[in-house]
């Protein structure tokens, strides 16, 4: 038995799954108190008399981090320290970032001596005094989190580690993310991903801590995993340090859940939540992964991501009239207090859909002030916003099935341009929880191999075996383990020809018969 929980900005969905059978499901409103929200949702699917059913694992997918970035909400004041001088200074950190995104994290940048050549020589030796002065300056500016990126830190991480140590000593409160732990070769994109990880680090502490507390307090004895954006699982401690890996895990889960529910392997999936709508494209049952640098909030990154576009349209999106605008502001968690339907004073997308009879919740008599004209125009605009994003994901003009999932699917109509059919599968409102529950365990290995002693094939096979071993010991069914990524970094001009090989594998959690 497995439990999948998806904590969205507005709703928390959960599902108890036995094999491929959905045993129980629930949908609750996400509470400000994350721990109680998760506990409520666990209670809803695990009545007290059945507590000892043998739940092997609780998998949580969360859009907390994606929403934090999209709304630029609760992001840490962040600095980027690059160990590079005198190299790599023409393009400073965050050079190609949208201005308002950079401003929202303050985005202080420090270029200091350091970095490695590709062959492991130092570009320059790090200057501890320089780093200390930078740390002092950060402290004065109220920096909460820092990204440290060194040129070729994937070849030799020691400078990043020493810099981290100095920063830690000077300013113990600053949360540190190091680029060699986050991304791959390609300094701008790796640094971008690291800065995103850093600016989420204050949020991740509280969010993951709250999840842990919920599972512990229920005494289930289950392992806790968070879902990653590549469709694999990571444990809670790992997730606290690397929140960036959970970005886009929500859409990944929804899409895999949608494929599971419809049996359709090739389609567009739109997951309409309370704050945002994530749209991706399924190919052979899996989200298409982008083969080019992936943008998060307009920022290029180089770690593996599903090809997903997010728009600020959800059940809680604020609707203004004359002229009609929808979002990006959302009442989010406050939908059942602030929206007109529930006696509040803010007109939301859900109010408009309810006024049109598309959903039956709240007190409709409170919507009498809304004109027919405004209802029609706003619903039309929501369709147009969705059609636009579907169109941007499609790569040819052919119509394609569109699967609408998520709690806010009723916002979007059945008549969508570009769709060959529009499907709303049963249990689609918890597709993301289902996707989390059926998620796979990942395993990675990364090592340096000397090709003087063994062949490349032997090195690859050793790295693959190691990754498989880890995935299996993390709970993967050995028969289902498959390689999803292989990366080789050459380390030349060493006494022997050496390469660094990274292999990533995934496998299913074994079914309990």
């Amino acid at each position: 038995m497995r439990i999948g929980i998806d904590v969205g900005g507005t709703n928390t969905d959960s599902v108890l799954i036995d094999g491929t059978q959905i045993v129980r499901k629930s949908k609750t409103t996400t509470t400000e108190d994350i721990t109680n929200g998760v506990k409520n949702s666990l209670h809803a699917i695990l009545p007290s008399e059945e507590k000892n059913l043998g739940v092997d694992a609780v998998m949580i997918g969360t859009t907390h981090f994606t929403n934090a970035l999209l709304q630029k909400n609760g992001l840490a004041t962040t600095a980027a320290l690059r160990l590079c001088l005198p190299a790599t200074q023409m393009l400073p950190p965050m050079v190609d970032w949208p201005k308002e995104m950079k401003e929202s994290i303050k985005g202080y940048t420090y270029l200091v001596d350091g970095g490695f050549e590709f062959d492991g020589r130092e570009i320059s030796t790090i200057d501890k005094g320089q780093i200390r002065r930078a740390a002092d300056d950060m402290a004065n500016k109220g920096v909460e989190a820092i990204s440290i990126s060194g040129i070729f830190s994937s070849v030799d991480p020691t400078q990043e580690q020493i810099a981290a140590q100095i920063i830690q000593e000077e300013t113990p409160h600053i949360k540190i993310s190091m680029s060699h732990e986050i991304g791959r070769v390609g300094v701008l994109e790796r640094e971008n991903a690291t800065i995103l990880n850093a600016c989420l680090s204050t949020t991740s502490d509280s969010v993951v801590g709250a999840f842990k507390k919920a599972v512990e307090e229920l005494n289930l004895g289950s392992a806790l995993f968070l879902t990653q954006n590549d469709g694999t699982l990571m444990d809670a401690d790992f997730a606290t340090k690397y929140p960036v890996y959970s970005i886009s895990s929500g859409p990944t889960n929804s899409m895999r859940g949608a494929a599971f529910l419809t049996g359709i392997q090739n389609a567009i999936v739109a997951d309409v939540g309370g704050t945002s709508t994530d749209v991706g494209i399924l190919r052979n049952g899996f989200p298409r992964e982008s083969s080019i640098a992936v943008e998060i909030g307009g920022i290029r990154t180089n770690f593996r991501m599903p090809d997903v576009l997010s728009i600020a349209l959800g059940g809680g999106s604020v609707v203004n009239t004359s002229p009609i605008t929808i979002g990006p502001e959302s009442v989010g968690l406050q939908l059942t207090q602030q929206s007109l339907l529930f006696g509040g004073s803010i007109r939301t997308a859900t109010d408009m859909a309810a006024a049109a009879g598309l959903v039956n919740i709240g007190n409709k008599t409170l919507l009498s002030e809304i004109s027919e004209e405004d209802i029609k125009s706003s619903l039309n605009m929501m369709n147009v916003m969705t059609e636009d994003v579907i169109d941007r994901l499609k790569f040819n003009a052919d119509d394609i099935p569109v699967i609408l999932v998520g709690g806010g699917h009723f916002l979007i109509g059945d008549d969508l341009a570009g769709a060959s059919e529009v499907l709303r599968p049963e249990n689609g409102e918890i597709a993301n929880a289902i996707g989390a529950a059926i998620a796979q365990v990942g395993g990675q290995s990364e090592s340096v191999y000397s090709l003087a002693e063994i062949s490349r094939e032997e090195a690859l096979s050793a790295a693959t075996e190691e990754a498989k071993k880890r995935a299996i010991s993390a709970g993967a069914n050995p028969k289902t383990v498959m390689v999803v990524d292989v990366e080789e970094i050459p380390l030349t001009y060493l006494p022997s020809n050496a390469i660094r090989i990274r292999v990533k594998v995934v496998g299913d959690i074994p079914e309990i018969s």
Partner: protein
Amino acid sequence: MWQVTEEDLLSISIGAGILGTGGGGNPYIGMLRARETIRQYGPVTVLSADDLQDTDKIVCVGGIGAPTVGIEKVRGKQSYDALVALENHLNVKATALISNEIGGSNSLEPLIPAAISGLPVVDADGMGRAFPEFQMKTFFVYGVPYAPMAIADEKGNVAIIPKAITSKWVERIARSITIQMGSVACYALAPMTATQVRDTAVKDSLTLSKKLGESVRSANKTKSDPINAMLKVNPGKVLYEGKISGLQRKTTQGFARGEVTVDGSGDFAGTVMTIEFQNENLIARIENEVVCVVPDLISIVDSERGEPITTELLRYGFRITVIGFPSPDLWTTKEGLQVVGPSCFGYEVDYTPLVLT
């Protein structure tokens, strides 16, 4: 004559990636560097080779090194430093700059010293594509001097190669210097005359890369097929479609060498293509039969968006389309093939021109 806009930089970086056949460095980084420099110093004018004056002194500038390194240790204004060092060494002033290769980052390299110095850039280059070695320029095949050369790193080091007995020797010496400089450097070459540019350069190539990039961008906007769109701008042939199933690479003697294996899909299902690269894609085989070979162009693009994928960004699982474009005529002469024919890269096959069907 035209001025390079920021929109043009985006288009050129895509077009130059396609013509770069996997090499020439990351066009995105080249685009950002050009953009940042133009924002700081002002716009750059592009001159047709036909607009050059007899008194013009045209200096070729370029980057040299391994692309895998160039996305990590990003170049700065080294090509400007090399230009100044060359001018000082020869006591002459350049009046225009020209790209050594239209492929990849190098297509935009002259824009950086051009913006800093206020000089125009000529709409032409020395390859019409990208090649891994210095001597592989149409200029030298047809008699343009290859020395002196100034070469600069990011640390402030400059080397001058005043004389060499062949262009291949310039390559050897410059490559050794580059490896010591950390496998990323920039150079400037002895000035060319207007006649030399008109007779030995691949002309209008900056415009071609701009149009190729525009065709891909516009196809993506209108949801039409970007592959067809680029083939309309520059006639070529779809060689293969499939998924990358294997990748082997090593950085040796300053080059990113390797081989990519592709499992066919669609019309190509059930077959395997292998492409060998030495910075650039050089030879493509389907089931061991050569289907395209250097100097014809072998471009790997994302199957859906048509965007070029450089060799350093190739990754297991990518879905790609492989496109062949015929080589510029300057390369398919006997003299040209002696410098960039298959045997120059260690392939014992005869050059058979790509047939467009």
